């Protein structure tokens, strides 16, 4: 992974000093709330329901064992001994003290970490596929460009105060796992007819209050121009994006208002001035950064391991875990392991300090000392030898990190909701927990198969409910908490936004509602059809009919 040189280190050190002084001035009353707000936000600090919330950047989801231990120690020392992995691959602390945040940042800086631009109206942490560099279906490893873009966007002088936040995702695989179409800019890397690295550029996607999938603004962009092109896009947005209404301020609204053709025309006009200028990435710089993402020193291994095969055959619990939590790897004899942060009945994405140490130890022992976080809020050991899988499983299981539910109904993506977030209409974590308990039967879960369930506590859509096969959204009706249900959302190359099935439900009804949706699927499915396929084939009607029929007779 990328390692800081003295320049990177100096920037985070100077940032700590700058932020320390800003916080000192705020506490001394020299800065008003309104003035301090964008400063702290650009450092990932929200003021929340109970306490500030600090969001620590995990650039494109890559983290070392050393960094993970540091996060564990920080969570213990400054918080309540746990952290929360978010759907943007970052780590959030829910209970730090404002006065402590400069010290937390100083500690993070010692392990090449920071909280820069994890919030606020600026370019946010760039996200990507958690299997980047090892996925068998990968065409281009996008991480070197992602790192170059991280540096370019860090304290960008022109884009420090955009109309609204700006999110970029990159992906270089056949099967999109980074939801590039749901980002302000999505960059899809591919090899062009000349075998050169090129990029398909999407713009104007986003969830939130007005869910819109992105539109292709450029089919083919040479990688050298990615910075100048993004700069042109964001410049047009900075000048013309709405600043009068926060709900209409994202780039998607501008793209819609102008129409993609006119927006594209303005971008191309701007780009004509920037193209081939100093922003053109040199081969030298790409090579300098890319060497940090070279393949690990893999051993030459046979594709099969007899002891592993035997363990799978004789141990059903292990076999179940392998089926759900072990993913393919491009190198023979290696696998990726997803450590589930979704044990049934716990807040999705939460991890204790002790578990952080366990996963760091696992990474050191079995996976070249590195980990990844996924937007599904799990952790990944990317490079595990097949012969080590059993040992990894035993240790992960002992630490509560081996729930074999990856990709299943209980692998719920969920925002912090009303328990923590002051914007929430409704709680989301208790709903996730109740659904997990309702389906706390692994055989039944396997029987249901692949299913993505997403929960957001309000229309800001932090839990990506629009793209969940089943989406649950907290709504406010006369001051009480209700839940609206959608089906048919999907992430990936064939992304879609779910349709609302009808009037909303109370919290107590929710596990039953999910149960009914599943019943329709189990009744109607053909062959190997997944839940989402059945919804796409039949539409919303049969689901709606069964859910509400039940409601009326009840």
């Amino acid at each position, binding site marked *: 992974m990328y390692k800081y040189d003295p320049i990177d280190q100096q920037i985070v050190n100077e940032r700590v000093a700058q932020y320390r002084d800003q916080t000192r001035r705020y506490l001394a009353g020299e800065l008003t709330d309104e003035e301090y707000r964008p400063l702290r936000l650009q450092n990932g600090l929200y003021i929340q329901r109970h306490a500030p919330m600090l969001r620590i950047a995990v650039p494109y989801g890559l983290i070392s064992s050393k960094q993970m231990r540091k996060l564990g120690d920080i969570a213990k020392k400054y918080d309540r001994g746990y952290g929360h992995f978010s759907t943007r691959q970052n780590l959030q602390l829910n209970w730090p003290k404002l006065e402590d945040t400069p010290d937390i940042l100083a500690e993070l800086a010692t392990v090449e970490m920071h909280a820069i631009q994890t919030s606020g109206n600026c370019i946010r942490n760039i996200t990507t596929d958690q299997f980047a560099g090892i996925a068998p279906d990968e065409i281009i490893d996008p991480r070197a460009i992602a790192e170059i873009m991280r540096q*370019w966007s860090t304290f960008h002088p022109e884009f420090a105060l955009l109309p609204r936040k700006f999110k970029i995702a990159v992906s270089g695989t056949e099967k999109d796992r980074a939801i590039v179409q749901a980002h302000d800019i999505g960059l899809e890397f591919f090899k062009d007819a000349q075998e050169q690295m090129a990029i398909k550029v999407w713009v104007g996607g986003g969830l939130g209050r007005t869910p819109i999938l992105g539109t292709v603004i450029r089919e083919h962009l040479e990688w050298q121009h990615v910075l100048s092109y993004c700069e042109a896009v964001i410049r047009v947005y900075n000048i013309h994006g709405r600043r009068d209404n926060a709900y209409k301020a994202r780039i998607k609204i501008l793209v819609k208002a102008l129409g993609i053709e006119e927006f594209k025309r303005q971008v191309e006009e701007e780009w004509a001035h920037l193209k081939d200028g100093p922003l053109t990435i040199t081969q030298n710089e790409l090579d300098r950064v890319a060497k940090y993402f070279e393949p690990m020193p893999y051993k030459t291994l046979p594709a099969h391991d007899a002891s592993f095969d035997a363990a799978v055959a004789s141990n059903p619990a292990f076999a179940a875990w392998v089926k759900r939590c072990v993913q393919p790897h491009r190198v023979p004899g290696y696998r990726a392991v997803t450590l589930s942060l979704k044990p049934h009945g716990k807040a999705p994405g939460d991890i204790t300090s002790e578990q952080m140490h366990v996963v760091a130890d696992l990474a050191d022992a079995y996976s070249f000392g590195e980990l990844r976080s996924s937007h599904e809020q799990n952790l990944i050991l990317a490079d595990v030898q097949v012969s080590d899988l059993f040992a990894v499983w035993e240790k992960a299981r002992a630490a509560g990190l081996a729930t074999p539910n990856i990709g299943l109904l209980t692998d719920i993506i969920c925002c912090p909701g009303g328990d923590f977030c002051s914007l929430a209409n409704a709680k989301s974590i208790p709903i996730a927990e109740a659904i997990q308990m309702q389906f706390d039967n692994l055989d039944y879960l396997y029987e249901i198969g692949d299913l993505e369930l997403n929960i957001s506590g309000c229309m800001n859509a932090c839990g990506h409910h629009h793209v969940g096969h089943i989406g649950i959204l907290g709504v406010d009706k006369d001051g009480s908490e209700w839940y609206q249900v959608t089906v048919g959302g999907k992430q990936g190359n064939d992304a879609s936004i779910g349709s609302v099935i009808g009037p909303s439900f109370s919290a107590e009804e929710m596990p039953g509602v999910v149960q009914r949706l599943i019943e329709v699927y189990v009744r109607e499915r053909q062959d190997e059809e997944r839940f989402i396929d059945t919804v796409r084939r039949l539409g919303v009607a049969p689901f709606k009919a069964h859910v509400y029929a039940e409601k009326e007779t009840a």
Partner: protein
Amino acid sequence: MSQLIQLAADGQASIVADAWTRVVPPAAGEESVRKQAGKVVLFKLTGEQTYTAEQIANTEIPATGKILVPLTIWQARKAELQSRLAAGELGIILATNETAEALQAEFPDLNTLPLIAVFVERFADGRIFTLGNWLRTRFGFKNELRAIGDVLRDQLFFHKRAGFNSFLIRADRSAEDALASLNDFSQPYQGGVADVPVWRRVNRA
């Protein structure tokens, strides 16, 4: 004590006396407020400065000395301001919702202006950075470029890198304290108006 910070050609910052008088139109009537879906929505955008004909006509312009005039005032009353321009006593204020093109339509060679100021009504309005950048890189403006309005120390480093070389700190804040923020970072990653990306600036290999 002056509120004006100026960068010398060598980048050295100091607090200097302000030789320019800002021409401010008299206050308008109340802001236009409309109701939408039961919620009050302010339709006046940040930085939006649309002066009424009455305001423009009633604006008092000092008879002597260096004056800093909003673009709209110049557009409406340029006949009487022409001699001031010739004498090098005229600077123009651009609001963040106005365009550099509109300015150039009035002054084909922007460098006939000794000073352009960009007015930012709320510090969080980042259009000022793009405007600064454009004026320097696209329109070749070489003279003094000043940030005025809600100008606070925590944005100064960005203003500087976006091409501004003077900064009128908001009246209730110390310009002295603000000086320190001009050097918050010693080796930024990306290029600014006056420099190139770090990987073109230094050898990082």
